[in-house]
């Protein structure tokens, strides 16, 4: 589930173009972004945005895995988080 400050219309247009089917949420006032202390003040074109971050949460609502990149060109790869999920979900069985 992806979250950014973009409004729903912008997100809808982009994910339709890209063909992405997972959930995208809009947080234009950065409420959740602030609650997770991920605000990058002034990081966007004249506004506050979210820093890149990935957080894996188990069904009890507990954070089990976190990735905070130090360089926004260096991003999480899908296989990395899938491996983390496999290990965590197996261990919890």
């Amino acid at each position, binding site marked *: 589930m*992806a979250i950014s400050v973009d409004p729903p219309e912008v997100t809808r247009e982009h994910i339709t173009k890209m063909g992405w089917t997972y959930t995208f949420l809009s947080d234009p006032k950065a409420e*959740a972004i602030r609650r997770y202390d991920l605000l990058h003040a002034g990081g966007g074109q004249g506004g506050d945005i979210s820093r890149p971050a990935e957080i894996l949460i188990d069904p009890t609502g507990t954070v089990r895995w976190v990735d905070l990149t130090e360089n926004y060109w260096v991003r999480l790869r899908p296989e990395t988080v899938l491996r983390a999920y496999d290990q965590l979900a197996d261990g919890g069985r």
Partner: protein
Amino acid sequence: MTRRRNFLPLGGFLICGIAFLSYPLFFARFPVTRDVPWVSWLLFGLGLALVGRGLVRSFRQPEHYRGRVLGPILGVLSLAFLGLFLAMTLVYARQLPASAGAPQIGAKAPDFTLPDAQGRPVRLANLLASRAGGAPESGSPGSWVLLIFYRGYW
């Protein structure tokens, strides 16, 4: 004796320009050339080597080659492309907040409700409690959720 034109500095300069532009426009799409921009570095290496060879030719054999004015200018511009590239990938991209208060492993994930792309409200707690995305074989009652915060401004 006519002096030959010296195309090496111009060629090197163009390759440096391509090295700079091709990263955000093309190579950043692929993790293997984005996380470590080795293709861009190779292009810069090639471009600067050509500029260097051209300058050596212009100054060591001025009777044979032209380019003692334009060559250094193109050399400086090529280095400027390299400087911009390093600033973009190594300096500017690292100016991210520390986020010391971000949830740690073992902490409860703060709940929130936000609209999805269709404007329908989505609550984290409801997703975690739902069976929709849960691994059926694990027999756990709820779902795992991966939150991906991204910069936006598409």
